[in-house]
């Protein structure tokens, strides 16, 4: 199944896109998503290791299973304030 992953700040600049599509099998986890993203956009890999993944607007651990309708996003280290 194809999932759309939202990108922000430096992640968006590195991918030159505000979202990327990745192909994941049913039952894939956030860890699988990370691996698929790094393969799809190799330049993103170093920042990805320092970034969190959000599922439906909450931070998600690597063992979280991704559902078809989940909203996915890469959250680089934040710098608000």
């Amino acid at each position: 199944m194809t999932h759309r992953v939202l990108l922000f700040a430096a992640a968006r600049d590195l991918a030159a896109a505000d979202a990327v599509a990745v192909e994941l099998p049913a039952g894939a986890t956030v860890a699988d998503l990370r691996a698929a993203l790094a393969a799809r956009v190799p330049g993103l890999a170093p920042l990805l290791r320092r970034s969190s993944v959000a599922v439906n607007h909450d931070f998600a651990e690597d063992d979280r299973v991704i559902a078809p309708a989940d909203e996915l996003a890469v959250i680089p280290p934040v710098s608000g304030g």
Partner: protein
Amino acid sequence: MVRLTREPIDPAAVTDAVRDPHCGAVALFLGTVRDLTGDAVTVALDYEAYGPMAEKKLAEIAAEVRRRWPVGGVALVHRLGRLAVGEVSVAAAVSCPHRAEAFDALRFAVDTLKELVPIWKKENAPDGTGEWQHQSAKPGAR
């Protein structure tokens, strides 16, 4: 009051939003755009947010502040877009019956906002180059 805005923040309005007859202490924090980061000169900052998640996390922080302290009102407002040196990027206000708890609650709110809320700033140098700031730890990591 919890929101993201592209308009200038009015500190008086944020303060008024938390005032409460039961509260003798109102604490306000303003984050403003600084002209230097280390030796690097900044002429402007660009703030970007993952809007729906940022609003959710701000609301969660406000709820946690209410859970931990006897708060009358809590306000968290973050500006987005391009800001010049000296402009207010974030305003946080808390009212409590007494000052000690107001200071503690406000510090927790601002520290947690900076740690968890998906907002990013890009520092723009005088030569026109810009750099996203990502020096903090992995957000939300336990």
